[in-house]
């Protein structure tokens, strides 16, 4: 299967994407390619245009300048930032996963096994914990057999343990399904400790590449501060050492991003 598409065929090609809203430039000539089996993490401060970029990648909006091209046959699975279920809506997990699509019972069973939600299928959606709900959303995104998974801060509302579990699951699915992943993440300490490609966005693409090289980029340092760059410097060292930093920095980063 994988031999049919060469590595140069991009699933998504973004060229000089420019978005202006009320006289303000939200995105300025952004170019980005997503290749087969890419795993790209998009980082950037609040207001950097991450969500706007995702909306254009999904072709939900038409750009003011530049273009977004989807390879023919591209199927995108989308996991939104958060879903708040109104308790007045009676909806089981199973019903949610089969509404407005054509997923069959047996497909649902194997999907549920993959994302470890089999025991939740008959639970009301409103009763799920944050982590369970994210897994259910992931399941729905996988139901359309996507070759690209787009996740918008999927672990934002999870505790540290939940975040780790969720990211591990994304990793497993990325490997087993051989799909491409584009993920927006605020969890810098996790993102920067991986070896995957990082793209740093602040209206334009500031820098991209492996975490180590991104962390040394002057623009990255000016956006995220010296702290983060220093934190990055300690990652290759001992476990006990960076655990402390990891913890401190998480809270720091979280409050920064909320404000």
């Amino acid at each position, binding site marked *: 299967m994988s031999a049919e598409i060469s590595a140069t065929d991009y699933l998504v090609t973004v060229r000089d994407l420019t978005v202006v809203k009320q006289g303000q430039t939200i995105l300025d000539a952004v170019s980005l390619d997503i290749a087969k089996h890419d795993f790209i993490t998009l980082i950037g401060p609040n207001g950097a245009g991450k969500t706007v970029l995702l909306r254009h990648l999904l072709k939900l909006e038409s750009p003011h300048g530049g273009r977004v091209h989807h390879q023919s046959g591209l199927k995108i699975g989308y996991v939104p930032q958060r*879903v708040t279920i109104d308790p007045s*809506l009676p909806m089981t997990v199973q019903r949610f996963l089969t509404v*407005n699509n054509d997923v069959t019972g047996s497909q649902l069973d194997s999907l549920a096994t993959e994302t470890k939600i089999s025991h939740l299928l008959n639970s009301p959606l409103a009763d799920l914990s944050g982590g369970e709900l994210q897994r259910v959303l992931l399941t729905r995104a996988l139901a359309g057999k996507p070759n690209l998974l787009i996740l918008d801060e999927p672990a934002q509302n999870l505790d540290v343990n939940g975040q780790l579990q969720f990211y591990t699951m994304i990793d497993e699915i990325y490997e087993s399904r051989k799909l491409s992943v584009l993920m927006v993440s605020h969890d810098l300490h996790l993102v920067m400790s991986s070896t995957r490609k990082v793209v740093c966005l602040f209206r334009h693409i500031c820098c991209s590449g492996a975490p180590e090289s991104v962390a040394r980029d002057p623009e990255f340092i000016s956006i995220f501060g010296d702290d983060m760059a220093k934190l990055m410097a300690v990652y290759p060292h001992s476990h006990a050492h960076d655990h402390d930093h990891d913890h401190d920095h998480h809270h720091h980063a979280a409050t920064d991003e909320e404000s």
Partner: protein
Amino acid sequence: MSAHILLTTLALALVAGPLGCFVVWRRMAYFGDGLAHSALLGVAIGLVIGVSNQIGMMAIAIIFALSLIWLRAKRVLATDTLLGILAHAALSLGVVAMTLLGAGDIEVHDYLLGSLDAVTQDMAVWVIAGSGLSLGLLMRLWPGLILMTTSEDLAHAEGVHIVRYEFALMVLMGVVVAASIQLVGILLITSLLIIPASTARLFARSPEAMAIGGSAIASLCMLIGLPLAQNFQLATGPVIVCVSVASFMLVLMARLATRKG
């Protein structure tokens, strides 16, 4: 009770179930109230240009929905503020216009609280056709509407045209509100949508069960309420709402009792 009244009320009750669910889920109660308030202006306009009440009310309802969408897009005032302005402007204009046109207090009263006398055979045809079409459209849009109610982001990303769906829902509300106003009255129309759906929520495990349960409960309330109103010479709206509230309380008690047991 004559056949055309029975059919009219049952048609309304059937569409009130699923539509009422969306009013509850999407918090459109104040929007429904606003639409209802604007209806009197529709009646007045109907009188002036010589079209039927229902056409006047539906036209005003659609204008109302469009104005709301347009004003909301400006993002200056909150939706409930806008609704308050639009609804009360339309109601006041309606009352002033009706009085200037020579409508008596009793006629205005009938519009506010509903009356069986208003249900003529001509009107029955309109109401049944309107309810039937609305129900059909609602069933056709159902999966997309349910997904959109769960998460607009997700629905949008999966190709549901959010703006069109929301507008369709508003127009449907307008049609059903216009169709049922003479029977239930401007002041109480929203409760006809909300109470049966809320009652069904107490036992429903799926959106569909809540919608069908809502229709069944609304039908039952109509069938009990209308003869009561007729026999005791009461306004129909308040009687139907009293019966609906009683059914809500009963189901709530039953729910609480079984949960304890």
